[in-house]
């Protein structure tokens, strides 16, 4: 099997092993669920696993790389290389539907699909995200066209939730709370 630049799908025995490695900071997800495992290639006897880090400063990259390396060797692959692929950059849109389901099950609200932070450079207008989004139907109001859906509480399913802080315990998460069940929860923010 040869590497095809830019492909993220992969298959084969080595892929299956690498894809099952849990994320160090979100261990309920595998690296494949998270979209961090970009590709696994086998060339002769050498297996190369390509990882795309989430945030620039993600401190878990070294551990991810070592975990993938160790699992592959334990599975009998003698020559293993782990490499970083920076392009295209990771996005929360790469989290698989299975990954989103596992996040919600673990009490972490998944990111919205297709809702990255935008270009956001200095020359583009700012769109400050609302800290609270009300479910129009529940509030007895007409829905506003184009308004994002409210964040659903992963604990009680309520939709009356609000952002406490856009920055949380890891680079990829924000702090929210539910006004229905009064519980705080974390949310993977879009990037």
């Amino acid at each position: 099997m040869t590497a095809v630049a830019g492909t993220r799908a992969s298959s084969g025995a080595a892929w299956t092993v690498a894809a099952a490695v849990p994320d160090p900071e979100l261990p309920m997800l595998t690296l494949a669920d998270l979209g961090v495992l970009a590709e696994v290639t086998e060339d002769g006897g050498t297996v190369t696993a390509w990882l795309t880090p989430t945030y620039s400063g993600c401190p878990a990259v070294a551990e991810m790389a070592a975990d993938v390396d160790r699992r592959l060797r334990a599975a009998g692959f003698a020559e293993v290389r782990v490499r970083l692929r920076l392009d295209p950059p990771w996005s929360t849109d790469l989290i698989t539907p299975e990954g989103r389901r596992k996040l919600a099950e673990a009490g972490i609200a998944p990111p919205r699909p297709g809702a990255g932070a935008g270009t956001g450079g200095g020359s583009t207008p700012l769109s400050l995200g609302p800290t609270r989004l009300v479910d129009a139907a529940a509030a007895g109001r007409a829905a506003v066209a184009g308004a994002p859906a409210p964040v659903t509480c992963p604990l009680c399913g309520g939709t009356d939730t609000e952002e406490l802080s856009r920055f949380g315990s890891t680079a990829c998460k924000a702090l929210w709370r539910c006004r229905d069940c009064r519980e705080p929860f974390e949310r993977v923010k879009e990037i």
Partner: protein
Amino acid sequence: MTDDHVTDDHVYLSLAEASPGPEGEGRWAYGTGFADPLLGVDTAVPPGLDGADLAAYCLMLGDDALVLAQRLIEWCTRAPELEEEVALANLGLDLLGQARQLLTRAGQADGSGRTEDDLAYWREEHEFRNVRLVEAPNGDFAYSIARLLLFATARGALYEALAGHADPVLAAVAARGVKELAYHREYATAWTLRLGDGTPYSAARMQAGLDAVWPLLEELFTAHPVELRAGVDPATLRGPVLRSVAAVCAEAGLTVPDAPGLAAVGGRAGRDGVHTEALGPLLAELQVVARAHPGATW
């Protein structure tokens, strides 16, 4: 960093051997420091690019990110609320990650083979190429927010332009960074609005912070020859950045300062290694452990 350069492949191999089995004791503390932030990324400098210029340019942008990361992290245990402390540390972490990649790239592109640690810990003050904006002491919270607003707006605009750069590493750092900087800019904007549009006292403090940091902005738009040869002319960012900052100020009820830029010294400023007196103490703290225990690993 070690003197005998152990490749990452060997480090991973030895870790794997030390803790066999998929569920082995393969965990260790973060910060063991061996991971190359550009592990396995092609190190070749693309044809048509001058390696020395590319390295100098990456050093400028990397030093901006490294020094501001250090300033942001100084807010730990000092921020007004726990959430803000976590937020500022998160922003610093993003910048530190960008700095690690940019410094590593600089050491590759100039052919010196210097690592991120060589560049961060073993250069002297006059060898740093950051703008003076990022080295200024934190001041009060309003000053730090004003500085962050200016830097994040300008750096976001620059990264947008650099996402198409001929060097794939610089382009990738910029493409990743533009979204991170968008979050930084949103954070700074939210606080600028909250303070500027708050009480008369908070508005006065925010205005004072903006006024105090303003003279340091101009340097970000003043082109160094290396920037013109290897990157984007920062003067082209002035218009869009000032318009964006002015829009935030208008919304916050603040006045856009019109103070002139802080003068260069004999035509030289941060990009030439001529800094304010604030950089030395910052570097002393940043570098002290690495210099006290050269080559130490743990």
